């Protein structure tokens, strides 16, 4: 089986109540999990916290054991040059190819003249292919230094 495209993201259901977000981060901290990127989508009643971590499986079991509803799926980390218009170029490529981006958020990486954006699309392979044709690369685990 070929390597699946993209990197693993965990989504956690978090009620909009005081202390709930703290709880999630404390569970991850206690499990020795390092957060590399995160975003939260919220409604009036709840939020969905999405995280990229160094140890997805350890994070998943720690959160599940602590009673959280967690989902694991693959998202596309895209590497764009750190200059004005670079993200716009990548999104234009996807829009022209008819690939819907459900959401995106930034990935903070150290050093180098690159910025990384996490994209949630329906079809990772198709999106990676059209981006690749336009010279926009999908970042590798090593490049993101997910596991140290």
């Amino acid at each position, binding site marked *: 089986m070929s390597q699946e495209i993209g990197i693993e993201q965990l*989504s956690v259901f*978090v009620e909009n109540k005081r202390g709930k977000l703290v709880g999630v981060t404390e569970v991850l901290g206690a499990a020795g999990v390092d957060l590399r990127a995160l975003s939260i*989508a919220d*409604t009036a009643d*709840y939020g969905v916290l999405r995280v990229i971590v160094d140890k997805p499986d350890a994070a998943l079991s720690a959160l599940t054991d602590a*009673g959280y509803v*967690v989902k694991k799926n693959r998202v596309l980390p895209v590497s764009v040059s750190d200059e004005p218009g670079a993200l716009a170029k990548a999104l234009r490529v996807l829009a022209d190819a008819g690939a819907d981006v459900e959401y995106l958020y930034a990935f903070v990486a150290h050093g180098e003249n690159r910025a990384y954006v996490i994209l949630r699309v329906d079809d990772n392979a198709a999106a990676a292919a059209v981006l690749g044709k336009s010279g926009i690369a999908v970042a590798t685990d090593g490049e993101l230094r997910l596991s140290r």
Partner: protein
Amino acid sequence: MANYYHPREETMSADEMRALQGARLVETVAHVYKNVPYYRALMDKKGVSPKDIHGVDELHLLPFLTKDDLREAYPYGLLAVPLSDCVRIHSTSGTTGRRVVAFYTQDDIDLWEDCCARAIVAAGGTKDDVVHVSYGYGLFTGGSGLDGGSHKVGSLTLPMSSGNTERQIQFMTDLGSTIICCTPSYAAYLAETIHETGNRDKIKLKAGIFGAEAWSEEMRRHIEAKLRIKAYDIYGLTEISGPGVSFECSEQAGMHVNEDHFIPEIIDPATGERLPDGEKGELVFTSITKKAFPLLRYRTRDICVLTRGTCACGRTLVKMAKPMGRSDDMLIIRGVNVFPSQIETVLINCGFEANYQLVVDRVSFSDTLEVKVELTPEMFSDEVKELNRREKEVSDRLKSMLGIQAKVTLTAPKSITRSEGKAVRVIDNRANKI
């Protein structure tokens, strides 16, 4: 094709039935008034005496009896014969408070077993059948009731009681059980296990008689398909005798009430007013043949509908619909009667589990309903629009079924307060609000 155990009583004309009920009612009222101080006090308080009761037309003059009365009179307060005339007791599970104990003379046991025999015969049972009773035996009425009914029919009775599924299936295959009696949830479990163990072609079941808990039409179809049997509903309650107060016939459309023993009425649970046939309300029973523990106008709290007329099976016994909820659970929201069970059905049909809570409030003079439901891993998505779609699906279905708008809120697993293991289903904040 009809099978009757008691052809005369089961197919009697309406006039004959009323006359029979009237005579038995008059006798029962005289019996309890004379022998039970508790009843005498209740009747005196309501200003009604046995001489006012000439038949079924005066039934509504009698006072109601509730579960609270049974608890207050525990254990001997409603006993209508000397204890030495009693041969058995049965008892309710006691999950919602003090236990209720019911007493039986030998005649009481006989008439109850006759009622169960009618149910077995209506399900196609004969003396050639092997009746497999997997209801619990003991204080619970399920096991003894169907066991006794099976003896009356003359079937070979397998007194399995509940539990030990492996042994149940072994007996079923080795002894060729043809009719199974148990709770519908156990039937569904047995069906799964029979399939998993590859025993489906070794069993000879043709029918099942399932009761003692609420079950849906979907569940009936599931059990029937899995076991390739006909699944019949049976209804009863310990206070009135046990299973067999009413039973389903081959039509599988409502349960015939053994009304020569138990007169059913439907009342408005709020006012106590008697409602006409066909209207939905609380089911009330008066037992007219029992001697040790006769109950007059006992409020079951079950909400259902009665329909009269001759059934396609030939029986004239009045039919009751499957109870659709409990009157103590009923909520009135913007004038609409809402049962938690209705909301539960919608949630389950939408893929959720039955972990929910209803919050009723009053905002700007108008009632509001919020349905909080615990999210399961299967229902979770990383996309908010998916979660919104799931909430909307529930509220759309509630709107079309109940006609009221409800706010649906997803909550974290195990976030709904549980007391003594049971979820608190309803929070009504409307008190003291206009």
